[in-house]
């Protein structure tokens, strides 16, 4: 046996052999590694520890750099760990810290090994063991090894002691009860003069303070002393980290530390410390104007520095300041904007964020102009980053900062023309959204849309298709503002539209339908060749009451003044004559004919609709074009009736619908909504659903009965399809969430929206047109923001409930660790253990005591005694200090006095013997009264 193991170890490949082999292999890396793994699996089972250790080392190497799992070797690692040789131990510890985790089954077996090594006389063994503990400690390990860690915290070997301090972090985190044992020693180490120890302790406290700063407030005097005295940048940085957490909690502390931090700011040469000072000032001391000014001065030095790191960090610091002091950003505006063209992507993004932070109502157009120029010049990624941030900033809170919507729509159009633009969908949403909400912008919107539609080059860019779809929709929906509908029609039907995806093509066709109806309506119903823009102005109010939909009227009145001016100059557009109409109809037939066989249902159906309409009207148009005008009025009655109807159908305003609209419909008498509808089937059973239901253009009232029965039938069908329809509805709500209000709050909403189907209104539309106009006007009127000077033309429906639910206040962290720390610091050890603490595996403290008796020597006993003595002496001290405090008012003057006495005490203690000194100092924070609400006045 020994012979074979000797052979094994003689001919075993070392790690170096493995690495060399890996570099020279010809069979492929994976194949080589799996062969090596096979070898290792054999070797690791060897009884010879050296062979085992080498195998384990090779395995660790493969696991670390070639990512092969090594959990199978967990037990072998423990075996190697038991070797007396340091080199084996080292390999084993390395393997363990690579592969062990909380659910490794053999984790329980490691406790004694660790304990043995923690008590070793070789400081490197102790260090290895501590390192391992810091990596794998779980509740049990932390609990069982707390006594050892406690001993090592006052080890006289610095090398061990600083590691023991560092390991405390993990032990506290895993086993909060250990705070009771170790915390005092940890605090004692804050007094240590050795910078290495101090660095480790301050590091631990900065980590602890990150999680729960409030618990460490009582230690502020110690930290303050370190801040003032320290000459080590690492330590100063960590202390600053602690103070940036503590200062916001205690204004008096903030006041106290401002000066030393400013001194550091002025005097330090180290950039890292300088930056930390800046960060501390801008995050936690931002109400101290002079400090902020000083910090900002330093930031400016960073911004103009050659080093891109400093520049980046300077911009980051500016962004933190911007939240409270926007003037700082404006002061450095030029540098920030210049950074937009920096070579470094980090700097560019950071400066973009800063620029966006500067945006407000009065500079939005200026900034957007600059940014769009940058977007045109920069690489695709950053270009879209810029566009995205412009879009999101401008649309924030219902276009809060946009004052001039004509400008914004133009900007959207311009943005979509930037070559790298990939924000099509967002632009689409905003174009439609603005079209619906802002009435004044519609003429401009149609013009922008026309410019986009008419450019055949844009059809080739697939990122722009969604923008084109929005343009097509807008130009169809608001065609009445178009200067030249004929041109629009040609744009919508141009051959290159075949490049569009079917869904967008369908929108194009539908828009073409709307435009065509508008042209026909203008030509025939309003009588002949009137230029559409002009027709708007001299639109006779009484031509057809049904055709005059309210928004149309209102707009024409509002816009008449400038519309005539603007449009008057650009009257070059061809007037709509009958000949042009005929051309138009031919064009439609030509363009859409092939689409009748389209595979896409949506395209096919819409093309069929449009062609059907053309078929219906074309003979009449041709007919009337031959005859005299008077005749056309007589004979073309049918056609004009159809045109009028279609025009009506399309001209209904499609505004945003309030979610509570349904709730406002008053229930008609006799309608029982909550009635059981089971017998419906019986009634409807014998009615055969019509195979096809053709929509009638006639008066709806004649067919009311059919309608009723039909809709009844539909109720039944609906219930079958309800799944599908509800999901569709949900999707719709999601997409158009802006237009809905949260349900269940209907009674809260102000009554600014008309009942959607008020029975009185339904009775006779024509009679009540005026009311309707009034109501809709009212509803579509621009809402004003209470604190906004200018009228806001945005239709904003959901003002009431749009405010997001207030962010959940973060629960004050009161986990077991911080409560344990508080217990120790505030000396309330007598309170019963909190539930979280007792949750830890069945009463840990008793278990710990039991274990200690089993495994440890009397040393531990005496140590416990020391603790006891400490606490009792502390209690007596507490009492005396409590008395003293009672007569002190926490006024500043007294506090100053106290600080002075503290200082004297310290000086006195300096002369005392070291050990005695440190113990006394450690007790100082414990003089704090038990209530956390009372702020200890030695903070000042």
């Amino acid at each position: 046996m020994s012979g074979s193991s000797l052979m094994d170890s003689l001919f075993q490949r070392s790690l170096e052999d493995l690495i060399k082999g890996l570099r020279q292999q010809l069979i492929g890396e994976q194949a080589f590694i799996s062969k090596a793994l096979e070898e290792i699996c054999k070797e690791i089972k060897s009884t010879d520890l050296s062979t085992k250790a080498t195998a384990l080392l090779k395995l660790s190497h493969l696991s670390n750099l070639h990512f092969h799992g090594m959990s199978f070797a967990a037990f072998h690692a423990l075996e190697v760990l038991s070797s007396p040789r340091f080199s084996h131990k080292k390999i084993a510890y390395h393997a363990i810290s690579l592969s062990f985790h909380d659910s490794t089954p053999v984790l329980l077996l490691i406790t004694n090994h660790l304990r043995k090594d923690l008590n070793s006389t070789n400081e490197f063994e102790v260090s290895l063991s501590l390192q391992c503990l810091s990596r794998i400690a779980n509740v049990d390990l932390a609990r069982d090894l707390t006594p050892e860690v406690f001993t090592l915290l006052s080890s006289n070997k610095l090398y061990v002691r600083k590691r023991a301090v560092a390991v405390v972090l993990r032990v506290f985190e895993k086993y909060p009860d250990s705070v009771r044992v170790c915390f005092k020693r940890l605090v004692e180490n804050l007094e240590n003069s050795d910078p290495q120890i101090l660095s480790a302790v301050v590091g631990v406290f900065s980590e602890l303070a990150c999680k729960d700063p409030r618990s460490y407030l009582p230690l502020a005097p110690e930290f303050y002393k370190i801040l003032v005295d320290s000459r080590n940048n690492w330590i100063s940085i960590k202390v600053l980290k602690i103070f940036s957490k503590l200062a916001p909690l205690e204004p008096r502390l903030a006041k106290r530390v401002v000066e030393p931090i400013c001194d550091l700011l002025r005097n330090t040469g180290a950039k890292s410390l300088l930056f930390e000072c800046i960060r501390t000032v801008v995050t936690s001391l931002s109400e101290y104007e002079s400090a902020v000014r000083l910090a900002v001065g330093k930031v400016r030095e960073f911004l103009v520095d050659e080093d891109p790191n400093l520049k980046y960090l300077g911009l980051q610091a500016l962004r933190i300041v911007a939240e409270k002091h926007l003037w700082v950003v404006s002061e450095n505006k030029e540098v920030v904007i210049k950074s937009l063209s920096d070579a470094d992507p980090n700097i560019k993004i950071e400066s973009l964020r800063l620029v966006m932070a500067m945006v407000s109502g009065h500079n939005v157009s200026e900034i957007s102009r600059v940014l769009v120029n940058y977007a045109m010049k920069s690489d695709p990624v950053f270009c879209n980053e810029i566009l995205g941030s412009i879009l999101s900033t401008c649309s924030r809170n219902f276009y809060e900062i946009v004052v001039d919507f004509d400008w914004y729509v133009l900007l959207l159009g311009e943005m979509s023309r930037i070559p790298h633009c990939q924000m099509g969908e967002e632009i689409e949403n905003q174009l439609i959204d603005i079209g619906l909400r802002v009435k004044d912008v519609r003429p401009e919107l149609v013009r922008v849309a026309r410019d986009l539609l008419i450019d055949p080059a844009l059809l080739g860019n697939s990122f722009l298709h969604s923008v084109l779809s929005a343009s097509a929709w807008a130009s169809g929906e608001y065609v009445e503002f178009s200067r030249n509908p004929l041109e629009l029609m040609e744009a919508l039907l141009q051959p290159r539209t075949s490049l569009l995806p079917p869904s967008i093509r369908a929108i194009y066709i539908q828009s073409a339908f709307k435009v065509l109806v508008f042209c026909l309506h203008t030509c025939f119903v309003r009588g002949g060749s009137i230029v559409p823009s002009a027709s708007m102005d001299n639109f006779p109010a009484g031509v057809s009451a049904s055709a005059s939909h309210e928004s149309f009227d209102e707009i024409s009145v509002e816009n008449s003044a400038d519309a005539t001016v603007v449009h008057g100059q650009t009257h070059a557009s061809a007037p709509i004559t009958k000949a042009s109409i005929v051309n138009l109809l031919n064009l439609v037939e030509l363009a859409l004919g092939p689409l009748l066989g389209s595979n896409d249902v949506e395209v096919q159906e819409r093309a069929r609709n449009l062609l059907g309409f053309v078929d219906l009207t074309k003979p009449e148009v041709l007919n009337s074009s031959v005859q005299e005008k008077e005749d056309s009025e007589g004979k073309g009655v049918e056609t004009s009736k159809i045109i009028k109807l279609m025009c009506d159908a399309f001209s209904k305003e499609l505004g945003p619908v309030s979610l509570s609209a349904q709730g406002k419909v008053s229930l008609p008498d006799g309608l029982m909504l909550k009635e059981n509808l089971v017998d419906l089937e019986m009634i409807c059973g014998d009615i055969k659903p019509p195979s096809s239901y053709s929509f009638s253009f006639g008066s709806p009232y004649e067919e009311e009965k059919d309608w009723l029965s039909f809709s009844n039938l539909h109720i039944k069908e609906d219930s079958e399809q309800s799944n599908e329809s509800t999901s569709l509805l949900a999707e719709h709500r999601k997409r158009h969430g802006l237009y809905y209000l949260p349900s269940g709050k209907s009674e809260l909403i102000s009554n600014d929206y008309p009942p959607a189907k008020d029975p009185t209104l339904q009775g006779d539309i024509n009679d009540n047109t005026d009311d309707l106009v009034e109501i809709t006007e009212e509803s579509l009127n621009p809402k004003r923001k209470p604190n906004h000077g200018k009228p806001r033309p945005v239709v904003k429906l959901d003002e009431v409930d749009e405010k997001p639910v207030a962010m959940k206040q973060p629960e004050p962290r009161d986990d077991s660790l911080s409560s344990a720390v508080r217990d120790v610091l505030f000396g309330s050890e007598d309170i019963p253990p909190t539930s979280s603490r007792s949750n830890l595996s069945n009463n840990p403290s008793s278990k710990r005591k039991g274990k200690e008796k089993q495994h440890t020597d009397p040393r531990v006993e005496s140590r416990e005694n020391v603790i006891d003595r400490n606490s009792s002496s502390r209690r007596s001290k507490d009492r005396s200090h409590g008395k003293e405090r009672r007569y002190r008012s926490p006024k500043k003057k007294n506090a100053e006095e106290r600080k002075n006495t503290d200082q004297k005490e310290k000086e006195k203690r300096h002369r005392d013997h070291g050990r005695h000194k440190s113990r006394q100092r450690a007790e100082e924070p414990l003089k704090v009264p038990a209530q956390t609400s009372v702020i200890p006045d030695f903070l000042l």
Partner: protein
Amino acid sequence: MIKAVMVMNTQGKTRLAKFYEYLPVEKQQELIRGIFAVLCSRAENVSNFIDAESIFGPDSRLVYKHFATLYFVFVFDSSENELAVLDLIQVFVETLDKCFQNVCELDIVFNYSKVHTILDEMIFGGQVVETSSSEIMKAVEEISKSFLYPFLLCLSKKTC
């Protein structure tokens, strides 16, 4: 707290990986690949930061330094100072340089254990415990001695 230390070459091969919280090897590989993908797309003479939050989750920062064929990458959270960690990378590389006399990639490849030892002397459980390269050197030399010392003891015992 430092979350991870990585050294990889310009081809994306990992030369050193140390994670201070347990991560399964597959996850480690994924993270390293993610970082390398960003690193190799960056130009020279730009800042040494990468947005790590998309790779490592919230509250993580990343600084790296590029030396010859190697990237040295440190990942840490908000309780460390970015510039100080950059200095730390410098210390690490200096120490390697002292240890191997003009360090190159091969030294790191062939001295797997020693590089780990050096790193462990600097960073302990995610916390920086030593920032002086001469102190680190001293400790590393001591450790190599104690490799031999018990070994000699063993031999002498056996021969006796």
